[in-house]
């Protein structure tokens, strides 16, 4: 296990470094300086701005300075929001994005695991194929369609739920959660069904049943542990998808989270903000992948080789 942890961290570190280096180089190779769009800046002011943002140094020095900052959690100042640091903006947006991702994954796990177990226990009956075909719909209808459609039906036509906001009105967290969570609920259902079907056919389940254990005990205590391994391994990539999905969902519903900040920064060409949040997002995604790999390995000894 320790070996595996070290090996995975051994991969994660070069990945992180590659990400930081690539993003840094990409942002710095962008055509035009960051202050080109400012109204007629005099050369002296430009020089001062460049000095303020450390842009007058050779690239390699800037790179190491930036790296030193990143290690200490300092992503530098934002170009577009003067007086605010990128770290500050991230710390404002992150809790909201996390809350949204947390509700979505909770919804996905609750619905997905339940539907998956149901399907695995009664394979090839309506209890199996009705949830599974619904899951196919959930996978194929992307958030850019699901979000506006849900808003149109429940927000505008039926007027049951608020169409935007986060924590301003009761119920305004429901549509974003559904929009973001549905696809993952569908994946969870399919993975749970697959994993459970495999486990339920194994000898130790037959033994457990032969011992006279109740069906619910067999399923919950014995089968679920192995059957959920694919779901747990999926949580890491799912987290990456959820963060990317938050770009869309936060834009649709006007949620002031990190995803919307990121998209806005991309629009405003706020290069330091793009650079900082790209690195931060990548760090999160790599971290979640690492954790879900390790948890999956802890649950299933076969994965430890």
């Amino acid at each position: 296990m320790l070996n595996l942890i070290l090996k995975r961290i051994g991969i994660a570190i070069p990945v992180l470094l590659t990400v930081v280096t690539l993003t840094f180089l990409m942002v710095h190779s962008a055509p035009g300086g960051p202050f080109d769009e400012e109204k007629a800046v005099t050369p002296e002011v430009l020089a001062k701005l460049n000095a303020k943002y450390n842009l007058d140094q050779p690239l390699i020095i800037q790179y190491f300075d930036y790296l030193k900052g990143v290690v200490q959690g300092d992503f530098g100042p934002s170009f577009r929001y003067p007086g605010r640091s990128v770290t500050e903006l991230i710390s404002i947006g992150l809790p909201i994005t996390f809350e949204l991702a947390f509700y979505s994954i909770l919804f996905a796990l609750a619905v997905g695991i339940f539907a998956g177990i149901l399907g695995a226990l009664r394979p090839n009956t309506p209890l199996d194929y009705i949830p599974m075909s619904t899951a196919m719909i959930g996978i194929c209808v992307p958030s850019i369609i699901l979000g506006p459609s849900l808003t149109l039906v429940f927000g505008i036509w039926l007027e049951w739920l608020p169409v935007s906001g986060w924590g301003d009105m009761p119920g305004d967290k429901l549509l974003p959660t559904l929009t973001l969570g549905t696809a993952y609920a569908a994946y969870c259902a399919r993975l749970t069904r697959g994993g459970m079907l495999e486990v339920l056919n194994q000898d130790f389940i037959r033994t457990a049943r032969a011992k006279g254990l109740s069906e619910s005990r067999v399923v919950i205590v014995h089968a679920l542990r192995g059957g959920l391994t694919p779901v747990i391994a999926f949580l890491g990539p799912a987290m990456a998808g959820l963060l990317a999905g938050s770009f869309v969902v936060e834009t649709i519903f006007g949620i002031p989270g990190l995803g919307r900040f990121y998209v806005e920064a991309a629009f405003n060409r706020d290069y330091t903000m793009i650079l900082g949040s790209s690195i931060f997002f990548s760090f999160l995604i790599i971290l979640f992948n690492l954790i879900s790999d390790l948890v999956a390995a802890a649950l299933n000894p076969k994965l430890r080789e």
Partner: protein
Amino acid sequence: MEVSNNLWSDALDRLISNKFSLFGLIYLTFIVVLALLTPFIAPYDYALQDLDLGPSGPSWEHWLGTDILGRDLLTRMMYGSRISLMVGFLATTVALFIGVIWGTVAGFSGGKVDTGMMRIVDVLYGIPFIIFVILLMVIFGRNLVLLFMAIGAVEWLTMARIVRSQVMSLSKQEFVMAAEAMGVSKSGIIFGHLIPNAIGPVIVYATLTVPQIMLLEAFLSFLGLGVQAPLSSWGLLIRDGAITMEEYWWLLIFPSIAFSLTLFSLNFIGDGLRDALDPRAN
């Protein structure tokens, strides 16, 4: 039923007997033909504005209505499908090309070359590419060619892994050893024996990659970081539709249906192909 001993005609029979895959094949063929013929059969010009008319619902003149600038929605959807499908298929081809060659060379060489090449794949795999694609679009402008390349360069990793494992198991088999013994060159073995035999899973994965890429394009266009007006793509149309849906629902609904059905079709065909090419799965 007719007895056939050809893998491909067998697979085709199985694919067509699956109702979902059959539906997918029919719908996709319809969409692709429509997209190819668009310049000849589109009822209007895609950028033609009719500001006097403005947004209008479905009618005889404009089957699917018009948008806020009075542009015909059906025409814009047809032109949009060309871009969405083109991004999907071209980027998949790029991914296929890089992935198959990388995977074959790694799997066939073995040893240190293999370890090195797959370690590179491992590292790249860990990089969240959606972030990079967005960065690329922000920094180098919303260039379609760049979009293909970026997405294609992202999607080859899984392909390389699949091909490598196929090649590794294939290259231990007798017919490859026989070819080696007969003095067939390395490239002859790779292109003549290994790739043709590894093609099944590759086709399945490629079919499932196309919708993913179309989704990525739509996602970027929806955020305003992909295709730019007056061009259109399904993602862009859905974005416009979402902005004005309160008054003009058709602008959201029709592109959404067309796009969802295409994603369904490709996924059904992919799933169907997987079952059809691997009878053991059932």
